[in-house]
């Protein structure tokens, strides 16, 4: 089963984990066949929000998270069940500074 592990960090610890640590853990998971995808993200001040209302596209700057934790990256993993997903998430390096939200993924509900 696939789970998305969303990494949340506050601005003051955004760079607390080195990229090499995160890359090493990604490699460990990939070698076990448990990493399906993942990437770090730039800070929230680079974000752009897109909406479509009444057929019109609106584009705005942000949203910014000034002091709160914000999404800083994700790992898409393959785990047997939630227990294994929790185990994997607990070893994601930034878990020590921020938090990891573990979400089960689902299939699109469409007729075959």
């Amino acid at each position, binding site marked *: 089963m696939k*789970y998305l592990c969303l990494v949340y960090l506050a601005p003051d610890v955004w760079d607390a984990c080195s990229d090499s640590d995160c890359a090493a853990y990604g490699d460990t998971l990939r070698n076990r066949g448990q990493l399906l995808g993942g990437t770090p993200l730039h800070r929230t001040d680079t974000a752009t929000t897109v909406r479509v209302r009444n057929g019109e596209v609106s584009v705005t700057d942000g949203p910014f998270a000034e002091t709160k934790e914000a999404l800083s990256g994700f790992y898409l993993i393959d785990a047997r069940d939630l227990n294994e997903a929790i185990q994997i998430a607990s070893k994601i390096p930034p878990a020590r500074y921020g938090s990891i939200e573990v979400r089960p993924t689902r299939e699109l509900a469409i007729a075959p």
Partner: protein
Amino acid sequence: MPAAEIARVRAEIDKLYRKDSRRIFATLIRLLGDFDRAEEALADAFRAAMEKWPAEGIPQNPGSWLVSAGRFKSIDKQRREKRFDHLEDRPDVAESLTDDSAAPDALPELLEDDRLRLVFTCCHPAIAPDAQVALTLREVCGLTTEEIAAAFLTPAPTLAQRIVRAKNKIRDANIPFEVPAREQLAGRLDSVLRVVYLVFNEGYMASSGEAPTRADLSGEAIRLCRLILELLPEPEVRGLLALMLLHESRRETRHTASGEVILLDDQDRSRWNRALIAEGAELVRAALSSQNFGPYSVQAAIAAVHAESPSSGETDWNEIVGLYDLLLRITPSPVIELNRGVAVAMRDGFDAGLAEVDRLLAAGKLSSYSLAHAARADFLRRLGRHGEARQSYARAIELTAQGPARRFLERRVAELTT
């Protein structure tokens, strides 16, 4: 079959339902992997028994028969749903439905382990604490949503919603039905024991008279803990069972008939339940003789010293202070420090107890905890410092929401001389 025989079989099925339906349910969850399907299968299985057993007789192993019938009906249902949904080409569904009925004679085993698996699932830390308690009572103990709602003074729809949400999460996030591996057991067992103790306390701490189902809650907690101990003989499971039995032994003497509080000192010790005390004390000894006991075992040891003392004056307060010291080393907490302070007062005098409580209050940790002010007031009263006692009682009363405890404090104030 004669009518009397049919009635006998029906009565037997009723009995089986009361005694074993939750075990059968737990096994069905393992086999079907889904709460709702298992619940449906359970109902179908008992319906099938009602239809068949009066004519065919009660099978040799009724529990396995019911599991087998429930599973068969559920799989049959899924096959029919599958045909409706045109999912034949989905290999995952087809596969899960075909490996069955290969050996129709091999009856599935009804495992007590299944109930333990279910306990660990219901008490999974990924489920909200409130929902863990509700789900355990509903799914493991078989209480109805209305019963749980009444016991926890929560509106039934709120509680039902909490349970549905938890069950959806178990399904969607794939929380497994399993007893955790040994290296994760300690942490996971904590959350199971916490739920058991919460259920017990909900039934024990509430004043009498208001909700009759509450003593039942304590009984459920004790039953559940016995089941866990049988399958998982860990020291802390033993310790928690001991603690609950020792508390339970005093249930009848803690309140007057009208629900007023009677303190430990004033309880009629001849009415304490000796059988429960003996069992609890034995469990404590076993727990403490292991190397890795925890806070429940130490709390049980304290309860055992009280339970085995003929009176408050003859209680070994020195041992109790020592046990509180041990407890504080395992789980530091200002409330435990307060309890230790009360034991110090009993051992060394009320001056010493007052000094302990004042030290805690000065540290600011317990300033809005009513029992800290109540203890201070009590020591001052016994020392004859009634003016100061009155002030502390007033503060304690201000902080007490519970009716009987409030009335107790107000009676004490009324007894003071100015």
